[in-house]
């Protein structure tokens, strides 16, 4: 139990009696950081959450975006870090399950999964490899069985996640606007629990996640069953079509305690439930265990009496167990009974709204001690460096991962995983582009600029597919918020994201905060993760590989920003320097320019510069296009006297590489000049090797097949031998 002193006092002052044992369990679960957001809630309000596309309904666990023609897209993001660090397979799988049910609870069919995975150094840490492999299997086995494609994601390795794992899962849903569940309930309605039986797994999971990971508490990890989840999806969607659902909530963190109190609170109703009616996995479960068990694959439905038999009939068809566990009252109380005995009777609002905190924040000392860049070594062997970067775990192709995920099922995946954002076709003829991005290396050096950078990178990826960003989701992952220095980094990131979201007018459709991400050797680096959704109105932009004679253009300015780059951290093992920051105006105009070039069919393909900088971005174009190029990096628009090393490896934002057909070159150059943005024609594609020169000095010469070998075999070579 994790109630704090001030909370115990608040309970005494408000309820004016001692709480029963069950009540204490319920309150402790609901008031955990994980469920109550008590440290962050006050501050999250700063994010812009309204916009012309955003649909808001009470009680939704996912964000809803209007995509026109009577259709909506829903989106949500969750993490399952603590469970995955203890039991990677089950932890990751149930992470997928939870976020899928959030999508389902709005009444939409889940159509895609994206995942962001982070581990310790897989090159020298067998435990990190074990976590990585099992997390990937957990996600694959769960998502594949559901028939929901895992379309995109990212994998990153950093020493700060040693003996730990960050498993973030975002899910996207799609449906008709008029079939959205409009959560409502009236006195006398029935409260029904459907799905898997309640068992002893996941007891106290949300409290487990709201503390630093000290001991391996396996009973707090839930057991996955994707088959039941699949049946629940079909049951719920059929029940939705038969109008059997007045209100719905998934059972996640805090189990029944949270689902009941939050539903009652958001709908302004009371709920009375009998614990004996809950179907359980084994006899002899204590009432308190039933109330806080986080057994998976369960949904809470409020239905009216006359629809109950229809609902039961649908559950029977799919073989899903369904128990009527209580009914709606008018008293706004959460009333838990066992037969005739009352175990808990508390105002729902009291349970659902934990007293919020004002955490202290102090600028961390480590930021003052960050090393200056001049201490970093310089590279002279550029060819070797590029090859080493291409096969480094953070940059090398992740096909070993995404080939284990069914990314085609649902037959919507137009742009497949492996490049920038992935694109799905929607039923109204439009296309949805989605990507998630994080960058702890940048965020560590500057939590504000780093967070904005993640946001920009996700936008860039979406823009590269020709999509207009329409909404974002954020997942803010930090260490212990009770440490004012960590709380400062959280606030910096949040403020940065808010500022950028407001400037670009991209509303936040939903999000999640995860604190207490502490490893045995200290807190993780600040790891905000940003997901961006974009819409393509007509035809999807399918990039065409460069051919002999096509030109390469770079848009955007390269700055003296090697801090947090893969070049510094992987090649030189140097943490320090200045990380990239986003110029809002450039960011916006570059994005709009790329979009209009795509719209006017003036580009063959677009790729953004991110990890590894320009050198890696251009290598990737050659690798995927199977063609060489001759590039003069002296022309790269940059601040004055930028060294070739920085031109190649700086990870400055707002930069795009364009492949231009010779016949469009003049037109494109005129167009870009008119927009007054930084750009340069860097050279042409041809032959079978990449040649990079700087002031007529040859810096790099590599054949494309060697690049391809390094890029495609990096991860597999690493994992082959356990």
């Amino acid at each position: 139990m994790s109630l704090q002193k001030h909370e115990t006092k608040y309970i005494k002052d408000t309820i004016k009696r001692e709480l029963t044992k069950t009540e204490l369990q319920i309150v402790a679960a609901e008031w955990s950081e994980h469920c109550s957001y008590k440290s962050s809630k006050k501050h999250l309000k700063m994010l812009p959450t309204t916009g012309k596309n955003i649909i808001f309904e009470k009680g939704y666990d996912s964000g809803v975006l209007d995509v026109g023609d009577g259709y909506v897209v829903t989106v949500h993001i969750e993490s399952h870090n603590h469970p995955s660090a203890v039991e990677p397979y089950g932890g990751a799988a149930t992470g997928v399950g939870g976020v899928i049910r959030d999508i389902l609870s709005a009444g939409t069919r889940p159509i895609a999964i994206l995942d962001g995975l982070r581990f310790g150094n897989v090159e020298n840490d067998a435990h990190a490899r074990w976590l990585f492999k099992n997390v990937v299997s957990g996600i694959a086995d769960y998502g594949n069985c559901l028939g929901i494609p895992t379309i995109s994601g990212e994998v990153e390795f950093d020493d700060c996640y040693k003996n730990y794992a960050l498993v973030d899962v975002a899910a996207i849903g799609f449906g008709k606007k008029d079939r959205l569940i409009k959560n409502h309930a009236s006195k006398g309605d029935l409260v029904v629990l459907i799905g898997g039986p309640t068992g002893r797994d996941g007891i106290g999971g949300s409290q487990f996640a709201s503390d630093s990971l000290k001991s391996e508490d396996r009973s707090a990890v839930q057991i996955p069953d994707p088959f039941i989840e699949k049946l629940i999806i079909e049951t719920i969607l059929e029940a939705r079509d038969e109008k059997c659902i007045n209100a719905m909530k998934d059972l996640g963190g805090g189990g029944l305690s949270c689902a009941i109190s939050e539903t009652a609170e958001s709908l302004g109703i009371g709920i009375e439930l009998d614990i004996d009616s809950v179907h359980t996995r084994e006899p002899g479960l204590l009432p308190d265990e039933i109330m806080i068990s986080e057994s998976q694959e369960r949904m809470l439905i409020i239905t009216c009496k006359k629809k109950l038999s229809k609902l039961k009939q649908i559950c029977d068809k799919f073989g899903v167990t369904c128990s009527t566990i209580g009914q709606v009252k008018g008293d706004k109380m959460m009333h838990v009974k066992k037969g005739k005995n009352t175990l808990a009777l508390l105002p729902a609002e009291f349970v659902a709204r934990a007293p919020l905190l004002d955490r202290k924040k102090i600028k961390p000392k480590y930021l003052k001690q960050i090393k200056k860049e001049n201490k970093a070594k310089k590279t002279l062997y550029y060819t070797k460096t590029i090859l080493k970067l291409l096969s480094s775990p953070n940059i090398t192709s992740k096909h070993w991962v995404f080939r284990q995920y069914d990314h085609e099922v649902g037959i919507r995946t137009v742009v497949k995983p492996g490049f920038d954002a992935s694109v799905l076709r929607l039923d109204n003829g439009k296309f949805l582009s989605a990507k998630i991005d994080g960058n702890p290396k940048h965020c560590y050096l500057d939590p504000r600029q780093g967070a904005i950078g993640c946001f920009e990178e996700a936008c860039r990826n979406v823009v590269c597919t020709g999509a207009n960003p329409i909404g974002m989701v954020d997942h803010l992952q930090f260490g212990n918020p009770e440490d004012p220095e960590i709380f400062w980094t959280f606030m910096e990131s949040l403020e940065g994201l808010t500022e950028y979201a407001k400037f670009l007018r991209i509303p936040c459709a939903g999000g999640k905060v995860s604190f207490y991400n502490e490893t045995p050797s200290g807190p993780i680096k600040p790891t905000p993760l940003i997901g961006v959704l974009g819409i393509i109105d007509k035809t999807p932009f399918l990039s065409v590989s460069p051919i002999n004679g096509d030109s390469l253009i770079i848009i955007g300015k390269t700055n003296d920003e090697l801090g947090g780059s893969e070049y510094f951290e992987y090649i030189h093992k140097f943490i320090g320097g200045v990380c990239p920051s986003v110029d809002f105006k450039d960011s916006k105009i570059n994005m709009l320019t790329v979009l209009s070039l795509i719209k006017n069919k003036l580009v063959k393909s677009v790729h953004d510069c991110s990890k590894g900088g320009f050198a890696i971005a251009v290598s990737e174009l050659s690798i995927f296009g199977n063609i060489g190029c001759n590039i003069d990096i002296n022309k790269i628009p940059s601040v004055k006297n930028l060294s070739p090393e920085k031109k190649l490896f700086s990870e400055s934002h707002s930069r795009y590489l364009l492949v231009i057909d010779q016949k469009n070159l003049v037109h494109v150059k005129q167009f870009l000049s008119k927009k007054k943005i930084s750009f340069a024609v860097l050279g042409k594609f041809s032959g079978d090797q990449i040649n990079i020169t700087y002031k007529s000095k040859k810096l790099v010469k590599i054949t494309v097949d060697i690049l391809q070998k390094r890029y495609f075999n990096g991860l597999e070579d690493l994992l082959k031998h356990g």
Partner: protein
Amino acid sequence: MLAVFQNKNMVMCTNFICEIISRIVKVGVIVFPGSNCDRDMFHVLTDVFHLNAQYFWHEKGLPHDIDAVVLPGGFSYGDRLRAGVIAANSPIIDDVKKLANKGIPILGVCNGFQILVESNLLPGVLLKNDSLNFMCQWTNLIVKNNKTPFTNKLQLNQKIPIPIANGEGRYYADAQLMHDLKNNNQIVFTYQNYVNGSVQQIAGLCNEDGNVVGMMPHPERAAEGVINPIDNIPSSLIFESLIHTIGVKN
């Protein structure tokens, strides 16, 4: 409509409706608990190839005069015990067997193929891929038998770019069975390159009569240009073959 079937007082009416439906319904798509490519298959049959398709829940019977049956992919019963083995014991499989004996075209894709094998409608077994992982990737198939109801519009040795997505897709047959399969021209598709350790790269096969075809790759994921980055024509011909066979004019 199903409610009408269940009402005993309306037997006359039911018979009448059954007759109309059986005249309209051409292709049955069987849905098991855990099927997850049923909607994709239905979309391609109806929206793309304008066939009359209807879902059949595994507990229901199939009309005796249906024109073709498709067992779509997915994870029937969560792949418990072994992929396809529980679904192979579903009530509807008895009807599938009767239709198979009558020579009705039956296609099993991925999990549907596994179910056909488990119900002995097709010989051999499907084992875990030799990578021991689920594999989702684009492959090239080679047509080895263009006499089946699902390949008669394809050329012999024609290449089909098509994705696979399975964990247990490695076909295995012993030497005797391989001999028979070849003699009877039962190997319908092979992979062009090594994929998962399937014996002789087998990706799809048919029964001795040729009307029951099972394949691990997903033709419904490759028949539309918008989701097939390479070439959607060859996969389309699998559906065109069916249309040609059952005589539906577009």
